[in-house]
Every structure is written in structure tokens, then in C-alpha cells.
């Protein structure tokens, strides 16, 4: 049983160009309810852009996005993004607000919860990531790992159906990576639908249900982690794995 109200997410034939730069060239990605898809590949392959297209921070030129089997391209994009949580490489906490206000802001302004209830729910989320005692601190006074856990709590507070992680541990000091990865693994185990863009091959291999390897705007290879990591079929994936492992 899932702890979350997760949904499935599907990207179909997604294309995106910036001028003459064809960043996404027909990407298909299917993430069934409650599963974790990791997306790996070299820098500049379009992984992060794919996430931003799937929650319509950037509108695709072509293709379709389905949430729970229904196309969301005609929906209000702001409402779509309320259903998809996102965690960034640089945390992007709001530095002018306290930790608890970072988490409760969307609850108050978008869910229209009264201040007290929003704070209570935010504290609950902070407790889940082990940072309730930092509620009234400023983000700048937290370590990178703590900041990223707050960012995860901020995204979870909106009760999203899908969570996106965009290289969530790349900016962390090595000793802080573990805690954040463990939290992400807990979410995956709890039944959250997740798309994880990552350079952490261990996480990709051990936690995700499917692995998608992207290069130059296309999906080169995709499948269960066992297949991707032990018997890569394409030369490009073999070369990439040889470089990173």
C-alpha cells in the first residue's frame, strides 16, 4: 500500500528546441504509479530539461504529457505543477523566509489553509525529514544536506502525485549525500511515483524500478536496472558506464 496519493506519469514523443538547438528529440518516458524512474546520461543530454518539460516549466514543442492517464497539456500549468513536486540541485529555498515558512508558503497561499493549520502541517513534514527542530531557523544557517531535506519537505507538503529530483545530491558535500539519498529511497519505498535525474549510479541501480539512459536529446536505452548496468546493449551506454563507474 502506498503512503502517498501517487499517480502515473507518461511523456510521449516530447520535442523541444531552443532556436536551432534541438534539446529533446522525441522522448518517451513511462512511470507507472508508485515506481521510480531514474534518468542518467552525460551533462547536456537534456535530462534536466526533460523534467522541466514534464511539469511544463518549459512548454514542449511537440508531444504529450499524461498524468494518471489523462493529457495535461491543456490544463492550467500552475495547477499541474501543484500536483508534481520538484527538488533542485541548488535547493532553491527562499532565503528571506524561515524554514517552516518555506514549507507552509504554498499551503497558505495555494491551498488557502489558515496560518495555524499550514504551520502544523509544515511542522509535520519537517518532522518526517528530521528537521522539526530547525523550523524557525533561516535556510542560510543550515547545512546543504539539511537545506535539501527542507526542500523535499516543501515539495511533499503539497501532497504531490509525482516527485521530480533534479540532481538533488550533486551540490552536496560527500558526507551529506547519504542522508538525502536515504530519504529519497524511503519515499520510493513508500510508494511515491518519482523521476530522478541523477549521477548517483548506486541509487539508480538499487532504488529505481527503471533506468533511462539519455544522450543528445534522445533515449538511447531504457530498462530495469539489472539490464542497464550489467548488460548494456548500446556502445554509447557502455562508454558512459565505463566513464562513471
Amino acid at each position, binding site marked *: 500500500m502506498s503512503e502517498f496519493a501517487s499517480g502515473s506519469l507518461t511523456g510521449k514523443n516530447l520535442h523541444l528546441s531552443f532556436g536551432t538547438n534541438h534539446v529533446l528529440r522525441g522522448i518517451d518516458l513511462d512511470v507507472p504509479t508508485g515506481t521510480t524512474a531514474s534518468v542518467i546520461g552525460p551533462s547536456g543530454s537534456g535530462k534536466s530539461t526533460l523534467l522541466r518539460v514534464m*511539469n511544463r*516549466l518549459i512548454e514542449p514543442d511537440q508531444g504529450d504529457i499524461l498524468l494518471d492517464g489523462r493529457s495535461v497539456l491543456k490544463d492550467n500549468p500552475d*495547477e499541474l505543477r*501543484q500536483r508534481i513536486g520538484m527538488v533542485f540541485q541548488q535547493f532553491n*529555498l527562499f*532565503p528571506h523566509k524561515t524554514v517552516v515558512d518555506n514549507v507552509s*508558503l504554498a499551503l497558505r497561499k495555494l491551498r488557502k489553509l489558515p496560518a495555524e493549520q499550514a504551520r502544523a502541517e509544515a511542522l509535520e513534514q519537517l518532522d518526517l525529514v528530521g528537521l522539526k527542530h530547525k523550523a524557525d531557523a*533561516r535556510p*542560510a544557517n543550515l547545512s546543504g544536506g539539511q537545506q535539501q531535506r527542507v526542500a523535499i519537505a516543501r515539495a511533499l507538503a*503539497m501532497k504531490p502525485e509525482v516527485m521530480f529530483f533534479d540532481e538533488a545530491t550533486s551540490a552536496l558535500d560527500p558526507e551529506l549525500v547519504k542522508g538525502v539519498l536515504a530519504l529519497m529511497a524511503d519515499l520510493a519505498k513508500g510508494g511515491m511515483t518519482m523521476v530522478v535525474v541523477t549521477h548517483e549510479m548506486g541509487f539508480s541501480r538499487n532504488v529505481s524500478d527503471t533506468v533511462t539512459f539519455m544522450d543528445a536529446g534522445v533515449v538511447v536505452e531504457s530498462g530495469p536496472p539489472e539490464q542497464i548496468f550489467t548488460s548494456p546493449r548500446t556502445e554509447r551506454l557502455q562508454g558512459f558506464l565505463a566513464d562513471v563507474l
Partner: protein
Amino acid sequence: MDALDQLIGSFFDWEAIAAVLPQMLTVGLRNTLILAIASGVLGCILGMVLAIMGTSRSTPLRWLSRIYTDVFRGVPAIVVILLIGIGLGPVVRELTGSTNPFPLAIFALTLMASAYIGEIFRSGIQSVEKGQLEASRALGFSYNSSMRLVVIPQGVRRVLPALVNQFITLIKDSSLIYLLGLLASQREIFRIGNDAAANTGNLSPLMAAAFMYLILTVPLTHLVNYIDNRLRTGRPEKQQPDDAAALIGKGAQP
């Protein structure tokens, strides 16, 4: 030593200064502050509109803000005050029956201040990392809500020192209103000093005016330094011992 006595006499004639001080404190100071504060507040409002237009995604709005800013930053204050004050004076008199030059003076000062303040706000807003807008939009906030709740509050905080500097300029520029002709009760610090200097043939009342301006502006200059310093080193906050330890070696963020 006659030359020196003469020099001291024309700048520091204490009797002349004492004679002009009461007027300067009760009438001049009040009028200067009315002009500076009113045009400062209105300039901030109009400046924020210009900054939002200047950072918007609409090209016509950006152009409009650009042209306005270029015009009112590029023309001397004295020209704007004369053009507005004398040019629009008769129209205002006809419409309202009032000959008070203050509204038009405040209007002219506001037009110029907003051009500078708009640029100050715009630079502040644009200095906020792109990730802040992105994070806010990813939570589901619209562009407008994201700007209002996340980007603009951070941007404004960063430019507070520049904003105070602009207010200092307004205090000084408000002296130009004397060109529009003032009743005795409408005179501000400079005009009172200037009138007294003309009547006595002695510059000491103008020295008193200069001193009055310094009393207003020097504390503000130090306020700028204080804010600047606090923004750079982070606000003093009560901290748990482990928080204090976590800060060591980390660049505190404003």
C-alpha cells in the same frame, strides 16, 4: 588678520544664524521633509511599477519603462521642475483654484525619483537567482504570485542601501522648488537660508541651511552603511550552539 575676521564673519555670524534658526526648524525643516517624504513614497510606488514593467515578459512594457527611465534620468532636475511647475501651474490653478506649488513640485520630484528608483528595484529584482522563480513556479505559484511573494521581497531587500541614497538625493533636490515661487509659510530650508542671506548680506544663514541638510543626510548615510553591513554579514539572530558551529566557514547569505 582682517581678512580672516571678515571671512569668519561672513560664514559664521552667530547672531545671523541664531536669527534664522527658529524659522528653519519650524517651517523649513517641515516643508523639506514633506517634499522629500511625499515624493520618496510616491517615487517608490511608481518606481516599483516601472521595475515590474522593465522585468516583464512583454516587450512593449519593457520598452515603455526603458523610454520613461531614459527621459527622466537624462534631464536635469531643475528643467523638470520648471517645466512641470510653471508649465502645468496655470492648468492646476484653473482646475482647483489652488496656487500652492507643492503638489506640482512633488509631482516633478516623483517623476525623476521614480526613474532612478525603478532602475534600483529592477537591478535588485534581476539579481535574484533564476532558481528562486523556478522553485516558486514549480510549487504551483503563477508568475505574478512568484514575483510578489518570492522574487521582489528578496530584490528589494538587496537594494535598500541604494534606496536610502536616493532619498538623500531627494532631500537635496527638494531645494529646487524655490524656483516656483513660495509663500513665507511654504519655504523650505534652502529658501529660508537664501532669503535671510540676501536680507543681511551675510552668508551665515546659508551655512545654517547647509548644516540643517547635513543633520538630515549624514545619519542617513550611516544608516546606509549599517544596512549594507547587515545585509552582507547576515542578520544577528539567536542561535543554537550547533547552528553557530554550522556557520563557521560558510558564507552567510542575506
